[in-house]
């Protein structure tokens, strides 16, 4: 389907896909940078997946990521400790910043009954402008060309193994932990029950409100961690305007196509990372700009979801027809 659109722009689809493949998967170098590109996607994706699976509409990944990133970026400039204390400390504070940002929404929901769906969205915009304010006025690096903070201290850069950043491994471990948590612990079970049926969970004795608060804090932490890994393990090591890119919404989309399962989320995040990284290469090779990838991703999401739900709906209809016929013929 997407090739039709490429054709429309007078480019050969095959060439585009080849470039996508070469730069996304083709060699260890491009593969590892694809994995690095997938790092924030894994975390925002898992964050969205857990929230949705628990029936909490947390759409604030973008804002939480930004808050995590800015806190890490600012602390990274001023904090003075040893390397192996500093990196985890910075990552965790970033996550906590995201959790607190989500915590505002949780408090608003709990005490003022404000729907988290709209308030998380609005907090995204507030976070966006707030962080831009911070990097344009108080923490501006005057030598940078665009509004940005100073580089964090060199010793806090996350090491990489042969091009593959440790940040990716951290994200993977955290995601695996989330999978375990949702599958085997009592809380995880409660969360999932809330997603299936709130009333059932209520009758089963879960405290819905405090669980929702927990889910918001937890998913906020994940998004915030995505932000701080972006600073510690990314390529820029500073907070720049527009660093959040589209990670928040990408995470939401990934969670959706993964049907809110953590493992599938990781896989789709890798796939999106490959696309993203390949998109940059595609821009080099052909005249298709990398913005096309955003469009391509959306088309993929819609197609996957549509096929799945169409099959489900019409499959069920056929099944019931068959059943009906059986009953009728027997009678």
């Amino acid at each position, binding site marked *: 389907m997407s090739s039709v659109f490429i054709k429309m*722009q007078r480019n050969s689809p095959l060439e585009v896909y080849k470039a996508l493949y070469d730069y996304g998967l083709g060699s260890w170098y491009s593969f590892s940078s694809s994995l690095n590109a997938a790092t924030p996607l894994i975390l925002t994706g898992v964050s969205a997946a857990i929230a949705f699976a628990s029936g909490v509409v947390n759409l604030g990944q973008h804002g939480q990521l930004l808050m995590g990133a800015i806190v890490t970026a600012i602390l990274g400039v001023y904090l003075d400790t040893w390397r192996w204390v500093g990196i985890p400390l910075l990552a965790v504070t970033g996550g906590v910043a995201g959790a607190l940002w989500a915590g505002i929404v949780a408090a*608003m929901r709990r005490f*003022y*009954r*404000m*729907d988290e769906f*709209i*308030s998380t*969205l*609005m*907090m995204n*915009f*507030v976070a966006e*402008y*707030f962080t*831009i*304010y911070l990097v*344009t*006025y108080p923490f501006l690096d005057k030598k940078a060309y665009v509004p940005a903070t100073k580089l964090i201290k060199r010793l806090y850069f996350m090491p990489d193994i042969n091009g593959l950043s440790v940040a990716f491994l951290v994200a993977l471990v955290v995601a695996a932990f989330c999978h375990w948590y949702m599958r085997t612990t009592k809380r995880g079970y409660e969360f999932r029950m809330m997603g299936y049926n709130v009333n059932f969970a209520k009758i089963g004795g879960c405290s819905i409100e405090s669980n929702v608060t927990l889910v918001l804090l937890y998913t906020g932490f994940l998004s915030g961690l995505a932000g701080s890994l972006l600073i510690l393990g990314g390529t820029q090591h500073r907070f720049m305007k527009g660093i959040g890119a*589209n990670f928040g*919404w990408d995470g*939401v*989309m990934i969670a*959706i196509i993964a049907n809110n399962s953590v493992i599938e989320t990781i896989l789709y995040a890798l796939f999106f990372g490959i696309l993203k990284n390949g998109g940059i290469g595609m821009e080099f090779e052909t*005249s*298709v*700009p990398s*913005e*096309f*990838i*955003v*469009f*391509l*991703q*959306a*088309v993929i*999401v*819609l197609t996957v*979801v*549509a096929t799945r*739900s*169409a099959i*489900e*709906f019409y499959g069920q209809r056929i099944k019931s027809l068959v059943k009906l016929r059986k009953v009728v013929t027997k009678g």
Partner: protein
Amino acid sequence: MTDLIFHIFGATLNSSTPIMLAALGGMFTYYANIFNIAMEGMMLMGAFFAVYGSYFFGSWAVGILFALLSGISMALLFALFAIYLHCDEFITGIGINMVALGWTTYALRSTFKVKGALISPRIIGLPRWQIPFLHKMPFLEEIFSNHPFVLYLAFGLAFVLDLLIFDTKFGLRLRATGEDPETAKSAGINPAGVKLLSTILCGILSAMAGVYLSLGYVTLFSENMSNGRGWISLAIIILVKGRPLSILGLSLVFGFFESIGLILQHYKLAPQFASMIPYLATLFVLYVYGKQRRRTEW
């Protein structure tokens, strides 16, 4: 000082229009019981194609035509996924928004060869209407006159739609479909058809909101220029439960906050904080409504 106040009121009308148009569009789907969050995307597409038509054909009318076509096709896309293929409406909405965002940034780069924003004298803006009999009253003229004509249509539309929803057969059918599609079906209404129609109307109105943004409010297109207005309009619809006249009122409140923000930029306040105001206002309104709800529930 009085000048400033009148200026603020004029600007309020101006900035509330796109929010109101999108909210009126979303109202249709609200009554048809479709959880439609695609206004943002439809608006963005409308804004882009308005500029596209205006740029290449040198006329605002073609711009509007293009925008409406894009709005309708986005609505058809939404309907295809959400109504006929039975996807989750929420997911479809997010998908549509992403398609719009991706497509407009991509097309901005591949068609106009610019990144960020397209500003060009070739974009023809909407004509502005002078209200003739207001000449004698300069203050009122400052507020009400010399706005793009869509603004007047939009405010008229709010009243027309109020009648349409509550006093006509179509309105009744629409609401019946939303309340209970099975019952509506037994009364001889085709629920899918009504839903499709309401989605298309939503697409048209949201696209008009986009036209107002890119050809009326300013005459340029920038990446993601709808910037959350679709979400704010969704918040409005949910808060007032879809009543068109209340939408009008609440849109004015939001327009007021937005123009206050714009005015404050000229003073000491950092522009980022000024831009935050509409979103904070949304949170505040949400808070007020939440408080009310709590009072009625307990």
